[in-house]
């Protein structure tokens, strides 16, 4: 019974996620009540607003970006490699990809492919710096990737200059790369009832999720990756080259990070300018943790996160600080790791007891 429920790791994940969700809604309600707001009507307003067509489009678009970011983080997390540098990687990648896309006019498809490839390569190379430092110099990737985030800002600032890769937009105080011509853009998908378009890069994100799943669960490399995450010492003894794993996983993570800016770049802004979104890499960390580093879990987590971000917009109109959802998000995140830890421990104990019982080894 309970054993059956907790036997499978995905059911454990679901149980943990549900408990955590309930817990964080409770926390949110308490915070709302203490601040003098009415929780049910707050949630109701969010829900009503969140299900409008425009909101749905925005939620999906947002979620696609989050999804890619979380996938990038998850590749590393799967082997206990902490790539905190997705943020810098995607920004630098998007900037250079935008510059490349704006500089050359290429035939349709080829144009998009070139832009995406540039992004992937740049993201991977930027991450490779951290991998290199870790493998050869023993520098913790946590610190090095954080520093590389800052340094990426410097590099972007250096390049995003009218005398280098940027152009000044006439009449505006913005600067950005030369807009990508229409051959390089990805047309959006119409959603009934909304004038907004769903980014077609959403499909690429889904594809990336599938590829991630396939890679982790079906390939030899994925097996090595998971083994390293579960027990580095056992993996090394089994013939996994730990240094090579670090380099490959880090570069792969960076390459996926390179995709993070693409939905926005190819489907919305067509240029990298001063107002290109930042901070998605950090959101990705939270979402990866929430989704337990699995592609399906991350999909749900990014939709939830995006939904909260989106639907909270209405709260300002009700004079409720919309940052309340940041509390919900953090609560869900912290509680999901804690609850998962507990569920897992209980599950394991039940497992052991079950095995012993089946084998009749437990003396009265």
């Amino acid at each position, binding site marked *: 019974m309970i054993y059956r429920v907790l036997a499978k790791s995905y059911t454990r994940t679901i149980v943990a996620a549900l408990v955590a969700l309930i817990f964080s809604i409770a926390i949110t309600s308490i915070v709302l009540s203490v601040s003098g707001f009415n929780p049910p009507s707050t949630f109701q307003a969010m829900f009503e607003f969140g299900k409008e067509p425009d909101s749905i489009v925005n939620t999906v678009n947002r979620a696609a970006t989050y999804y890619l970011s979380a996938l990038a983080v998850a590749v590393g997390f799967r082997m206990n490699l902490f790539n905190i540098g997705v943020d810098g990687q995607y920004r630098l990648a998007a900037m250079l990809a935008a510059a490349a896309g704006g500089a050359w006019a290429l035939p349709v498809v080829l144009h998009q492919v070139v832009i995406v490839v540039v992004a992937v390569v740049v993201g991977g190379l930027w991450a490779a710096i951290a991998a290199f430092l870790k493998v050869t110099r023993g520098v*913790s990737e946590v*610190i090095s990737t954080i520093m590389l985030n800052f340094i990426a*800002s410097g590099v972007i600032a250096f390049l995003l200059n009218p005398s280098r890769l940027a152009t000044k937009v006439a009449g505006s105080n913005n600067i950005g790369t030369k807009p990508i011509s229409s051959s390089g853009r990805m047309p959006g998908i119409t959603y009934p009832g909304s004038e907004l378009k769903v980014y077609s890069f959403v499909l690429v994100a889904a594809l990336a999720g599938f590829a991630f799943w396939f890679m982790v669960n079906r390939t030899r490399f994925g097996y090595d990756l998971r083994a390293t995450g579960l027990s580095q010492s056992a993996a090394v003894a089994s013939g996994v080259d*730990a240094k090579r794993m670090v380099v490959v996983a880090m570069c792969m993570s960076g390459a996926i990070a390179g995709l993070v800016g693409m939905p926005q770049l190819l489907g919305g802004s067509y240029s990298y300018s001063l107002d290109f979104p930042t901070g998605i890499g950090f959101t990705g960390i939270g979402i990866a943790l929430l989704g337990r580093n699995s592609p399906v879990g991350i999909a749900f987590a990014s939709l939830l996160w995006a939904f909260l971000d989106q639907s909270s917009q209405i709260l300002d109109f009700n004079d409720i600080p919309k940052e309340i959802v940041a509390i919900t998000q953090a609560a869900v995140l912290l509680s999901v790791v804690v609850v998962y830890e507990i569920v897992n421990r209980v599950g394991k104990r039940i497992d052991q007891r079950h095995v012993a019982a089946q084998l009749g080894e437990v003396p009265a």
Partner: protein
Amino acid sequence: MIEQEVRTPAPDTGGARPRGATRGLVIGLGVFVALILLRLITGETDITSSGTMGATLALAVPIGMAALGGLWSERSGVVNIGLEGMMTFGTWGAAFGAYFSGNPWLGLLCGVIGGALGGLLHAIATVTFGVDHIVSGVAITILAPGVTRYLSDLLFTDEQGGGATQSPPLPSFPTWSVPGVGKPLGSLENHHWILISDLAGLVRGVLTGLSPITLIAILLVPASFFLLWRTAFGLRLRSCGENPIAAESLGVKVYRMKYAAVVISGGLAGLGGVFLAMVASSNYQEGQVNGRGYIGLAAMIFGNWRPGMVAGGAGLFGYADALQLRGGAGAVHAMLLLIGIGLLALAVWRGYKGRYVAAVISAVVAVGVLLWFFLTDELPREIVTYSPHITTLLVLAFAAQRLRMPAADGMRYRKGEGA
């Protein structure tokens, strides 16, 4: 910090090393002499001016408090990358306490409590529930800006000068200078005499215009050393970071020690936050911490988990930042010379030690850096802004392998499940 088992050469543990304090002093002196020489060669007087030294101190305090916080936590075996978030709680707490009471000291108290609460959360997650330390730290760093913005929106928007992203102006601490130091040293400094003026700059910069928080922060360094290395409490705490199972077997309450360490860690980070909100500026600002918690962690690693060295690390980053903010591209450009010569020396040393490949690599990089120095007059401003971060990376790349973190740092430890 979390070092995966990628095999890197183990730290040298030879017994005949100078003791930490002496070693720190020697290094400090060496650096200072190098800076003096650099000033003479390049003529960039700002390299050792009192202004730079004062700014170094001001910029080093928050980093140093984060680093010291990290040290406390990691000495007990809990990795704390949530320092950034705890500092954020500190900045907000300071604003809350100081603004609503009108008393800066209550701001100090609330800021420290704010950070300590962040620490408590981290302790609950990692110690009681066995959550991975990095995971919990990241979660707290995500939590902090959300909570503080929510609270600001509730409490500060209707106050004059406040908003969702900032507090109204806060009452400030009095500042204090060692009497009789400012004037005479100032004139000495302006002569730009070798050593004397440099020393005058250093002393004057460090001894004038001090806020109480700066003083507290400075005192916390020896205090931490004393508490951790000279008291029974400290021994117990450190034993949890080295071998919690052994500690447990000797009756040490490991959970309690870890809780204490992580809460103190948060409190120290919170103090760094108080400094940012109330001394470095005069109000709470969203995003004020701006990565200083992470740089603090780097300073802690650089300082090999020892308070004196950690303070030195914070000083180094503070100095890099002061130089780039004040002197800008010119002074930082001068630093290239120092780096180049340093690398050249390293190359010679490695050659002498018979590590020829490493020597050649160092030599090539050194020549590159020196060429860069001689062929340019300035570094790109955009890059100079990030020189503290680049310094961090470089320093770690050259120092990380010689460092020794607490043996059980980052380990999940569960009571009664030991060997």
